[in-house]
C-alpha cells in the first residue's frame, strides 16, 4: 500500500515535471510555430538566475518564482528582437538559428561561470509514508504544474490578452487591421514562453546540478512532449506529459533511470509513427 502511494507520487511527479519543462516550449511552438531549440538554455539561464540570486542572499522562493522568469523573459525579448523576428515563417531556419543561440548561450555562460556544477539544496525537507521517505519538494513541483496548467488556460480563454494573442496567431493581418500590432504580440508571447522556461529552470535547479550544458538533457524531452501532444496547446501538453511521464517512471522503476529515458523517447518515436499529428490531432480535437 505504502509502495503504491509512493510510486503513484513518483509517477505524478514525472508527469508534472514534464508539464513544467515543456510549458514554455508549448507556448512558443504552439502559438507561434517557432521551434525554439534554445529552450534548454533558457532553462539553464533560469537556473543560474536562482543560483546568483541566492548568492546575493535573496529568498529561494522569490528567486524561483519571480527573478528567474523575469530575467529569462527579458533575455527572450532581446533575442526575439535581434534574431527570431527575422525568421518568422521559415521553420527550418528558425530551428538552426535557435540552435546557434543555444550554443552561443552555453558559450557565454561557460565563459562567465566556468564549466563547473553549482547547486542549491532542495528546500522543505521530506516526509514519510510508511517506510518510505518522500521529498516535500516533489509535492511543490506537482502543485506548480497544476497551477501552471490552470493559469495558461485562464489567461488564454478568459482574458483580453489571451483573446488578442489567439486572434493574432490565427490571422495576423486581420488583427493588424483591428489595430493590434502583431509584432508586439509576437514579442510578448515569446517573452511569456521564455519566462515559463526560466521558471522551469529555476524550479528544477534544486533537483539537478546546474551546469552550462544542462539544457541538453531537457530539450529533447520537452520537444517530444510538445510535438507528441499535437496542435492543442494545453490538452496536448497534459495528455502527452501524462503518457510519456508514466512510461518514463514505470520503466525507471522496473529498470534504471537511463533506460527509463530511453523508453520515453522510444515510445515517443513509435507514437509519432502511429499518430503523426500528435495526440490532439486525433483525440480531443477543438480543445485548447
Amino acid at each position: 500500500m505504502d509502495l503504491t502511494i509512493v510510486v503513484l507520487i513518483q509517477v505524478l511527479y514525472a508527469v508534472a515535471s514534464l508539464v513544467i519543462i515543456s510549458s514554455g516550449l508549448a507556448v512558443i511552438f504552439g502559438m507561434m510555430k517557432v521551434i525554439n531549440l534554445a529552450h534548454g538554455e533558457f532553462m539553464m539561464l533560469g537556473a543560474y538566475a536562482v543560483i546568483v540570486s541566492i548568492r546575493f542572499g535573496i529568498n529561494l522562493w522569490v528567486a524561483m518564482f519571480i527573478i528567474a522568469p523575469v530575467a529569462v523573459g527579458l533575455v527572450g525579448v532581446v533575442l526575439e528582437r535581434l534574431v527570431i523576428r527575422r525568421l518568422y515563417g521559415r521553420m527550418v531556419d528558425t530551428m538552426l538559428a535557435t540552435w546557434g543561440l543555444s550554443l552561443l548561450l552555453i558559450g557565454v555562460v561557460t565563459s562567465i561561470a566556468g564549466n563547473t556544477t553549482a547547486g542549491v539544496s532542495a528546500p522543505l525537507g521530506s516526509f514519510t509514508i510508511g517506510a518510505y521517505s518522500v521529498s516535500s519538494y516533489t509535492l511543490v513541483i506537482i502543485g506548480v504544474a497544476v497551477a501552471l496548467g490552470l493559469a495558461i488556460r485562464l489567461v488564454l480563454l478568459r482574458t483580453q490578452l489571451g483573446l488578442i494573442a489567439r486572434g493574432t496567431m490565427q490571422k495576423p493581418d486581420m488583427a493588424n487591421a483591428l489595430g493590434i500590432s502583431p509584432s508586439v504580440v509576437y514579442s510578448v508571447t515569446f517573452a511569456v514562453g521564455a519566462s515559463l522556461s526560466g521558471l522551469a529552470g529555476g524550479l528544477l535547479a534544486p533537483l539537478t546540478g546546474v551546469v552550462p550544458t544542462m539544457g541538453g538533457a531537457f530539450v529533447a524531452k520537452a520537444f517530444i512532449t510538445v510535438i507528441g501532444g499535437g496542435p492543442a496547446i494545453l490538452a496536448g501538453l497534459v495528455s502527452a506529459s501524462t503518457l510519456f511521464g508514466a512510461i518514463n517512471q514505470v520503466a525507471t522503476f522496473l529498470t534504471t533511470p537511463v533506460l527509463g529515458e530511453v523508453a520515453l523517447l522510444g515510445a515517443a518515436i513509435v507514437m509519432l509513427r502511429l499518430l503523426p499529428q500528435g495526440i490532439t490531432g486525433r483525440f480531443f480535437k477543438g480543445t485548447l
Partner: protein
Amino acid sequence: MNRFAQSWVSAALVLAIGIALMFGLPGVMDEYTLMQGTIYAIMAILGVSLGFIWGFGGILCFGQAAFFGLGSYTYAVAVVNMGDSTVPFMLAIAVPALFASILGYLIFFGRLSDVYMGVITLTVTLILFNLINSTAGPEWKIGNAPLGGFNGIPGIPTLNFPGQVDKALSPGDLFYLTMSCLLVTYLGLRCLISSKIGRVIIAVKENEQRILLLGYDARLYKLFSFTLGGAIAGLAGCLFANWGAFTSPTIFSLAQSAQIIIWVIVGGLGTFVGPVVGCVAIQWLTTQIGTQQTFNSNLVLGAILVVFVLLVPRGVVPSLGLVLEWIWNKLKTKAMAENAACPQPLLPEVKFTAPSQTPSTANAISITKEQAA
C-alpha cells in the same frame, strides 16, 4: 542552360585538386600534420554525407552524428571480436545504413514533416548517447569487446590489408585510404545526382507534391538517400575509429551533430564541395580557438551559425559559385555570339539571371527546377 556547378568541368577540377592534395601533402608534411590532414578528410566525408541528404535530398537530419558514432562503434566492436578488419569495415558501413533505413522507414512512411524529422533524429541521437554512456560496467560487452560507457573503447586495432591480419595500415596509408574514400564518395555522389534517380531525389526536395502526382513514390527516394547518407557517415565513423584507435560516446553528442550542420551551412547547401570547405574551415577554427582562453568554442560556433542563417543563408561556396558561374556564362555567351555571327533569327537570347531573392535555407540551392524538370 548549362551551369558551372553542374558541369563535368567543375567535377574534374575538384577531383584534380583532390588527387593533387592526396599525393602532394604526404611529400610536404610531417607525420603529425598528415594525421591532422586525415582527421580533416574523415570529417569532410561526414560533412558530405549530410550535404547530400540535406542539400540534395531535402532531409534535414539533426542526428547525422548517430550514424557516425554507430559506424565507429560497430567497427570497434567487430574488429575486437574478429581480428581481421575486412568484415568489420563492411559492417561499419552496413549497420548504420540498416539503422538509417529503419529510422527512415518510421519517419518517411509516417509522412512526418521536416520539422518533426529534425526533432526525431535529434532524439535518436540522444537515446544512443545516453545508452552508450551508461554501459560503463564490465557486464556490458558484445563478444570480447567491453563497451566502456563514457570511457569509450581504447586501443582499437587499425585496419589491415585485406586478408593479412599482421599488416596494419601506417598513418600514411590511412591518409591515402581516407582521401580516396573522400574522392570516391564525391565522384559517386556526383554521378548519382546526374543519373535519373538523382534527378528524382532533387525533384522530391523541390516539390514533393508534384513528384507524387507524376507517379513516383517520394518516400522510397527519400528513404534511399537517407540510407545512403547513413552509410557514408558510417564509413566516416569507421575511419575515425581507426584514426585515433579510440572511440567514445562524445561522438554521439549534440555538439557533434551541431558541428556537422554548421559545416554544411557555412560551406553551402546544394554542393558537395561546400561541406568539405566548411568542415575544413570550421575544424581549423575550432583548433585555433582551443589554443586560447578568451573565447569559448561553443560561443564562436553558435555565433557563426546564427550569423550564417541570418546573413549568408546560401553559404560560402554557392556564393563563390555564383561568381564563377557568371564568368562561365560570359564565356559561353561570347562563344555563342561568335557562332551566331552568321544571321540566325529567332535564336533565343541567352542571358544569365542571378537569383535575386534569397530563399530560405532549405531551398537555398543553386540547382533549381530546371534540373528537376
